[in-house]
């Protein structure tokens, strides 16, 4: 199967982060600082990415500004012509590095917010005084003339705030807002019962976004990520496996998507040993689900197979036990009705269970997390 050139690279510079969001997209097993790639290796990887055809680099984490060399890495993106996007929490050392990042040629900032409300945001993110830091950070982004996107992950704990989050984005001078319903992998999967919103609330949030898009046309672009469990068709995860995106982990493993390591039996090559181009073209992990040849029914004969590429492999594994199955988010999957019923049952439980906050290497947390996963597993 021929591989078209990738357009985007998610560079997870570190898993360290001051926030502890219970829906973090990082894996449950977080890389430690001692395992992180050094500056020179990241710069080599970025040069290779540009040569391979990557256009956008998303400097992410964890919190990317937790790396002392984030400015040097950003400057290297500018040097090799890559469009750099900083995906940040805006807390900790982020503000202190922002001017230098702008000076180094940073193109765009995506700032996460957990809530429109400080107390609720700090409960969700697990960090006191986070909201004031985020507001100060956002103000400095626009003062520097950098384009600002706000990203709000939506779940049971903030789904009533969508209108206020839109107002906040306007007030902060953002050009874009991502209203991103939680995707249930990693920490979010472990916390699913605490995060899953009710269908009626989801529908209302979508109507709110649609009305705001009209009212704010030309002022604020709103991108909406709808929740899989209530969807009729799956999303084209990462634009299709091994088609558009690559993800480099803090320690250098190269993945087709950030959750791919949950799939057993896939060997992920590392930039420590191989070039990005070799990994993109020849890595067995990228080849495993690239294209359509791997597909079972009902995907194989479906006329949508090159639109959604079978949906998400990690979700198929988590919900059916088979990474090669049709994503159960699809109404054509035999598991679809069960998934919807599961979501409704979790959302309908009177009181949401407490969050299992994200943490690096805590044995206690890991134990609880695995218990959470077991409790969430399907019958």
């Amino acid at each position, binding site marked *: 199967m021929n591989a078209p*050139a990738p*357009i985007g690279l998610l560079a997870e510079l570190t898993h360290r982060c001051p926030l502890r969001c219970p829906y973090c997209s990082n894996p449950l097993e977080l890389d430690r600082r001692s395992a992180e790639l050094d500056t020179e290796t990241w710069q080599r990887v970025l040069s290779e990415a540009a*040569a*391979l*055809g990557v*256009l*956008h680099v998303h400097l992410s984490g964890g919190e990317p500004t937790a790396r002392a060399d984030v400015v040097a890495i950003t400057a290297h993106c500018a040097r090799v*012509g890559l*469009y750099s*996007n900083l995906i940040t929490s805006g807390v900790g050392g982020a503000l202190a590095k922002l001017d230098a990042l702008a000076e180094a040629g940073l*193109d*765009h900032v*995506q700032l996460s917010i957990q809530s429109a409300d400080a107390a609720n945001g700090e409960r969700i993110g697990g960090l006191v005084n986070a909201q004031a830091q985020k507001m100060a950070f956002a103000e400095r982004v626009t003062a520097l*003339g*950098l*384009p600002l*996107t706000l990203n709000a992950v939506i779940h049971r704990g903030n789904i009533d705030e969508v209108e206020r989050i839109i107002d906040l984005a306007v007030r902060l001078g953002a*050009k*874009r807002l991502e209203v991103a319903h939680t995707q249930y992998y990693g920490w979010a999967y472990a916390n699913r019962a605490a995060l899953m919103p009710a269908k009626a609330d989801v529908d209302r949030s979508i109507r709110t976004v649609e009305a705001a898009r009209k009212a704010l*046309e*030309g*002022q*604020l*672009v709103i*991108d909406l990520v709808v929740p899989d469990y209530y969807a009729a068709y799956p999303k084209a995860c990462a634009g299709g496996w091994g088609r558009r995106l690559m993800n480099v982990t803090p320690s250098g493993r190269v993945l087709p998507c950030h959750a791919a390591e949950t799939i057993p039996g896939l060997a992920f090559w590392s930039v420590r040993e191989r070039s990005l181009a070799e990994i993109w073209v020849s890595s067995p992990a990228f080849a495993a689900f690239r294209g359509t040849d791997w597909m079972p029914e009902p995907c194989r004969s479906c006329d949508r197979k090159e639109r959604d590429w079978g949906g998400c492999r990690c979700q198929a594994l988590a919900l059916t036990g088979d990474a090669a199955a049709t994503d159960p988010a699809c109404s054509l999957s035999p598991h679809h009705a069960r998934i919807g019923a599961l979501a409704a049952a979790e959302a309908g439980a009177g009181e949401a269970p407490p969050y299992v906050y994200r943490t690096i290497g805590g044995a206690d947390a890991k134990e609880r997390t695995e218990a959470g996963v077991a409790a969430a597993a399907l019958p």
Partner: protein
Amino acid sequence: MSDALSLSDVPRLPRGVRLRFDEVRSAHVLLAPERAFDLDAVAAEVLSLVDGSRSVGDIIDALAAKYAEDRAVIEGDVVAMLSDLAKKRVLDR
């Protein structure tokens, strides 16, 4: 704010939006936050004239002087394209 651009508007690409030639795909591309617009040769030429000093009218004049196409047709295409990009927040006026 989302009205079509007029001939006297002076469009410019804001910070965070860049016109680039993509050597791997041999095509021009407009890079913007979280998205990339594939550009054909005509669209790339229009955007290469967007420099923060030329008005929409100036851009149309430059294209009309170069191509045999009817000016009204050029005007319609240029205004529609630039207005669409403004609506998507990747072009300022």
